[in-house]
């Protein structure tokens, strides 16, 4: 156990400030809680951009894309049924 999450976040933020004061201006906490993943069960104090560590800056949960993809799928399904019915109604 490292401690309570809130305490750890506060300690992390404190350490970032401390580092920035000593000249490490690019120190930051990598803790993506604002995007759809809402935190990754781990956070890191890094120097520089997250990309340099292979960390996506704004990771997203792919399930957020389901709605638009299924909407498109249902629209295609309905369009195909209509096209087939029209084809047989007018061309046979």
């Amino acid at each position, binding site marked *: 156990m490292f401690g309570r999450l809130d305490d750890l976040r506060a300690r992390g933020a404190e350490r970032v400030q401390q580092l920035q004061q*000593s*000249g*490490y*201006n*690019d120190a930051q906490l990598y803790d993506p809680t604002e*995007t*759809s993943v809402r935190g990754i069960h781990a956070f890191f104090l890094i120097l520089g951009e997250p*990309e*340099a*560590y*292979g*960390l*996506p*800056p*704004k*990771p*997203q949960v*792919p*399930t*957020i*894309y*389901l*709605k*638009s*993809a*299924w*909407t*498109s*799928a*249902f*629209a*295609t*399904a*309905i*369009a*195909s*049924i209509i*096209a*087939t*019915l*029209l*084809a*047989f*109604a*007018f*061309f*046979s």
Partner: protein
Amino acid sequence: MTTNSPSEKRLEELREQAWKEGVVPGKGVDVAGGPIPRKPGYYGQPVVRPPVWTWEIPIYFFMGGIAGMSAVIASGAIIFHHIDLARAAMWVASIAGAILSPVLLIMDLGRPHLFLNMLRVFKHRSAMSMGAWILSAFGACAVPGLIALELHAHQIFPGTLDQLLRVAAGIFTFGSAIFGTLLATYTGVLIGATAIPAWFLHRTLLPIHFGTAGLGSAAALLELLGHRIAALNFLGFYAAAVESALLIWLSVDKHGVADRAIHEHGSGWLIRIGEVLNGPLALILRFFGLVPFAAISFLIGALVSRFGWIAVGKVSGSDPESVFAAERYHDVSS
């Protein structure tokens, strides 16, 4: 050593700064041809896992599309009394959807009972789980539908039993048509709702492409099987016209680095060649009445572009720069 070369100068500056302040916040020297090549991300390592699918999956997408949309054509044929066409379409739906598709999925999974494991959960947030259920429901409708239709067509049973078979054939065929439209389109959702940039950036296009390619392929295959009727010709025109529009959409809707696998990498050519074959070329051939050639062109195009989309996914998922760039395009509403 020349002391006035820019990199030597910069090194001197860094040394002085380090000596005075104890810390160097600025960038170091980029040596051209140095031992550590500068790659985006962490030494060019993939950020997300690229797909590991082999040839079974694109062929399954192709077969599932044909099978699902054949059932739709069969339903239309039943409503408008083209019983021979309905029988042929249900044969195609049953063979492609209830035999070849599960076999391809099982080949991908490795062992048959892993497919049954897929049916242990019903997870509406997972397109793969929904797909396993859609395929199972489709097979459970298409095969009884075909049997009932054949028994009715051959007048095996007399009187009321035959009437009952007719009703059963209709119900099962319509059921397989409903699940069939989903079978042909869910594959677009399956790869669209992922973390692969080239896929999720085109999540609206993919189900339209897969579904319409399935409809056109089903019509083309039935035409090649000898059912040269005007209704199937119309469906061929419709599918080729939609695919032509999608080709234009794909060429216009670029996202720079994020989906460069489609527009700059060789595997993107598979998609474009496929789209030309089942879009403009099929349309032109059909326009000049060369129906069999249009049908063959459409079928090849539909198959090639499925392989193209899987290949592009592998390239795009292995490209960290694309993954980073794609995070700028996570507009959920569109």
